[in-house]
């Protein structure tokens, strides 16, 4: 009897200790990343999550899709399910206002080889994607395809069904470009002039899409002949043999970001993983799979020349692309979203 009670107590203590250990330290072994699903998420897993797991033993759990409303709810309630989230440029500025992100530690993340537009106090770039003209290459064969937004607006020279994004972002800018404004004079946007230019194309647009996957589907189904689209989505269907082409002329180039959710329990571990994601090799592997532009300049060492020429950050496109000003949009998006809605209903 004498010896059993201390034994029982010590078992109990051991259990309590183990439970404590598991919740305090064990949680550090798992990082949840919210990404965009499909081929994108698969490429992210192959290039970044899997090698990192193998190297460090830290478990990376991928889940889709990043939802800003959910993220805000997580931060509001302190119940953080996603430690790292993959977000668009506009979301970065909106999320900064709402205080949704942890500040990044650039003594952990090496930014010396990163392009400046992929570095932010609270976010590090994952890739550069482009807003381009995707077109049906059977309808517009060879070199006879729309090459800039003035061509897109020119319904006589390029007859065919068209699609644009149903929202003001990029649409106001391309309307100005179609109207002859030069790429370095876009901001601050002359909103009235942009809508006037949009009036001209409005009735020739058959589909106003809302989700990034739609343009690729619209081209595949033959629903439209040309559309504003995200370059990687079109590159993906081209790989599958769909007769489609990308025109990078006057494309918008946008950084896609990785952020750490404010209040995450694994900030330190997440920071180390972000540092890995920004390295040249994972960047090269992910971006050549997705056909996006890497943010690490050394990545091009590991990317095939043929692939590198097709990426939005390829040298040959550099003079014919522009970068949306997310700060301008953060100030004006609320008002312009409403004006856009009303314009659509006219």
């Amino acid at each position, binding site marked *: 009897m004498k010896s059993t009670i201390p034994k029982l107590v010590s078992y109990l203590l051991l259990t309590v200790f183990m439970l404590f250990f598991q919740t305090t330290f064990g949680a550090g072994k798992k990082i949840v990343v919210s990404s965009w699903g499909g081929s994108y998420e698969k490429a992210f897993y192959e290039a970044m999550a899997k090698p990192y797991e193998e190297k460090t033993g830290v478990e990376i759990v991928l889940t889709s899709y990043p939802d800003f409303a959910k993220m805000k709810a997580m931060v509001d309630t302190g119940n953080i399910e996603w430690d790292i989230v993959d977000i668009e440029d506009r979301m970065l500025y909106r999320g900064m206002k709402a205080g949704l992100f942890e500040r990044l530690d650039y003594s952990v993340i090496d930014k010396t080889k990163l392009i400046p537009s992929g570095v932010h106090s609270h976010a590090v770039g994952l890739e550069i994607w482009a807003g381009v003209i995707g077109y049906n290459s059977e309808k517009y064969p060879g070199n006879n395809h729309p090459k800039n937004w003035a061509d897109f607006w020119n319904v006589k020279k390029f007859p065919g069904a068209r699609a644009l994004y149903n929202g003001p972002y990029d649409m106001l800018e391309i309307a100005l470009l179609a109207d002859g404004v030069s790429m370095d004079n876009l901001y601050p946007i002359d909103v009235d002039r942009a809508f006037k230019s949009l009036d001209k194309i409005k009735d020739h647009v058959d589909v106003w899409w809302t989700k990034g996957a739609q343009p690729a589907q619209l081209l595949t189904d033959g*629903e439209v002949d040309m559309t504003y689209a995200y370059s990687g989505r079109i590159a993906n269907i081209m790989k599958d043999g769909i007769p489609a082409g990308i025109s990078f002329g006057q494309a918008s180039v946008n950084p896609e970001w990785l952020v750490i959710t404010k209040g995450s329990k694994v900030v330190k571990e997440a920071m180390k993983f972000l540092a890995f994601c920004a390295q040249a090799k994972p960047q090269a592997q992910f971006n050549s799979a997705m056909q996006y532009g890497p943010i690490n300049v050394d990545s091009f060492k590991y990317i095939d020349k043929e692939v590198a020429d097709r990426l939005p950050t390829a040298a040959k496109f550099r003079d014919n692309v522009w970068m949306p000003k997310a700060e301008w949009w953060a100030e004006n998006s609320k008002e312009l979203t409403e004006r856009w809605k009303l314009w659509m209903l006219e």
Partner: protein
Amino acid sequence: MGHSSEPTQFGWTFSLPSIALLGVVFVYPITLFLSKCFFDPTPTLEHLIHLFESPIFFKVLWITFKISFIVTIISLLIGYPIAYLLSSVSESARSLLMILVLIPFWTSLLVRTYAWMVILGRKGILNKAIMALGLSDSPIKLLHTAFAVDVGMVQMMTPFMVLAIFSVMKGIDRRLLSAAASLGANKYQAFFRVFLPLSLPGIGAGTLLVFIYSLGFFITPALLGGRKEVMISMLIEEQVSTLLNWGFASALALMLLVATLVFFFIYSKFFQIERT
């Protein structure tokens, strides 16, 4: 007195758990969200004022009611004869027909919406048929129009209409029609003066159900509609998930709820819902 209150009390006691559950998982979160209209981020009327100042809300509310109204009427015109058929045929034929009504009812809304995209598209089944028959040289624009939204939503809603009307029709005593005939009424008179009035409660319940359900539609108009087919839920979704403006989203949701309740009130005066 004692006789009538006892079953009521009995009913209340047994409903308590479900009422409590609804309170916790339904009433509480909705109240919490709707209160954002007045308290996001601090006590304010800003969101409601903005809603009344900007023409967007009333325009979209009008479109929402218009689409819902059209869908309700067409569902009624299609659903009523189907319900009539269901209530007239033999038991075995009825179960077969019922399956035909229920299969689309059980199929995911998203799947059915995509199916309509395949049918109505520029290179879709319908356009291919039209061009093969030589009715038109170029594809007709069917998808991304008000027509596509109406067709898609009617298909989603008709089963609700059929089931609501059928449940009333099967309780109508058919001998009343024979009685009408024996008093000299012809087929049409018997239907319009005896059967139709008796089936009105079913029409009332069916149209109400379909109309209110339609008001909250989101996926179908978003995928099948063009730029003008914007319904109020689409506006709310954008405010919640893209613009993170939960205060205004809550104001929109509150006004939709109020508009629906006002409609319900007027409607119940006409159809006297409580008696059905």
